[in-house]
């Protein structure tokens, strides 16, 4: 009978989907774990950089640094944003939330957007933002090397006066239940981010070749550190969102499959009952 066969086909389809979503969930879970481990390894490096920058400001407070210059008086200030999304969908509300946050803060006229990940890139291009895609970074290349390349590029743009402010839009996993999009400032640097103790000079530090050269290097590394942190946090959020989405998809597939099996059995039984009554009816007629 056609009915039972149709149901059987649907059951097979749903079971297939279930297998896929289950596999995707496992993949997301393992990527999540790996990204976390990677992040933990990098922490001492960036902590060190922050400490050294604090040391410098402590020992040479008179140093005027361009990286702290807010350029408030400049006309036509240009803001730049780095927005991190994923490369593909199937991760619940992850991308939508980041894009919503970005739309809220980005002023289309005077800003440039550096997208990381395909979803946000395509969206921004479609909606008339000034998008710079030359970095060509996808969300899957989360390494300190890519973060370093972006940081170097940004610090240079800032130094050359092409951008006056740089912000990062990313997603943070605040708890198991909530993934929240955040915006943080990367440049110019804020003095309050470094715990410079009042009272000034603690020890005299020598610089080789000059404080400026050393500090520029540090700024690169510092921006890289924050950027990398944001990238990892986003990556973790993405895979967590995907894991959840795939988990509920698997549960739903199970439910559907259960219901279909029930329907299938009912249809099968009905067919048998009908056949039996037909046989009996036929036998009674011949007698």
């Amino acid at each position, binding site marked *: 009978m056609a009915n039972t066969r149709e149901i059987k086909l649907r059951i097979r389809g749903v079971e297939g989907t279930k297998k896929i979503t289950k596999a995707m969930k496992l993949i997301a879970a393992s990527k999540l774990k790996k990204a976390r481990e990677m992040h933990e390894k990098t922490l001492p490096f960036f902590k*060190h950089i922050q400490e050294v920058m604090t040391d410098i400001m402590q020992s040479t407070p008179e140093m005027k640094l361009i990286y702290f210059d807010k350029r408030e008086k400049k006309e036509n200030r240009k803001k730049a944003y780095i927005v991190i999304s994923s490369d593909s969908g199937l991760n619940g509300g992850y991308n939508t939330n980041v894009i919503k946050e970005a739309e809220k803060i980005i002023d289309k006229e005077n800003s440039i957007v550096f997208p990381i990940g395909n979803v946000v890139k395509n969206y921004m291009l479609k909606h008339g933002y000034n998008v710079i895609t030359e970095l060509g970074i996808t969300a899957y290349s989360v390494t300190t090397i890519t973060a370093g390349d972006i940081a170097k590029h940004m610090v240079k743009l800032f130094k050359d006066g092409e951008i006056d402010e740089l912000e990062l839009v990313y997603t943070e996993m605040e708890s198991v239940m909530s993934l929240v999009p955040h915006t943080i400032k990367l440049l110019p640097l804020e003095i309050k981010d470094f715990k410079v103790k009042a009272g000034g000079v603690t020890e005299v530090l020598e610089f080789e070749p000059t404080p400026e050269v*050393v500090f520029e*290097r540090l700024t690169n590394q510092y921006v890289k550190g924050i950027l990398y942190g944001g990238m990892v946090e986003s990556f973790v959020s993405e895979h967590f969102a995907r894991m959840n989405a795939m988990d509920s998809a698997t549960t739903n597939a199970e439910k559907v499959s259960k219901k279909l099996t029930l329907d299938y059995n009912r249809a099968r039984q009905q067919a048998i009952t009908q056949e039996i009554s037909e046989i009996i009816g036929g036998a009674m007629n011949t007698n």
Partner: protein
Amino acid sequence: MAKTFKFEVVTPTGVFYQDNVDFISFKALNGDIGVMANHAPMLVANKPCTLEIEKNKEKSFAFISEGFVEITPEKVSAVVDLADWADSIDAEEAIKAKRIAEEELESKTLDASRKTELKASIERSSARIKTSSLR
């Protein structure tokens, strides 16, 4: 016995080296710098170069990339992007990378930023090759 000092090499992929050593040397932007115990506090930007570590009269060599070295009375730390022991460097790979970068530098008309990039890459490869010959 000579006085030792705490020395560490920190990279983004973790702490590469950590021990009490007698002497280290590396290349700063304006020349070589050697550090022994009780060195004056200093902050040095370093070139990609060979890092020499001496401990108990035994020398070991490693490649370090661009970064900086912080010298304080308590300890000396090199904070760099990459670090590799001399014997784990793939010299052939480095030679190849250097050649490719050199060819690109010569053959095409390039903008300034790409040029500096290539020059930095050649410098890194050269330092790698040199380090690997010291194993």
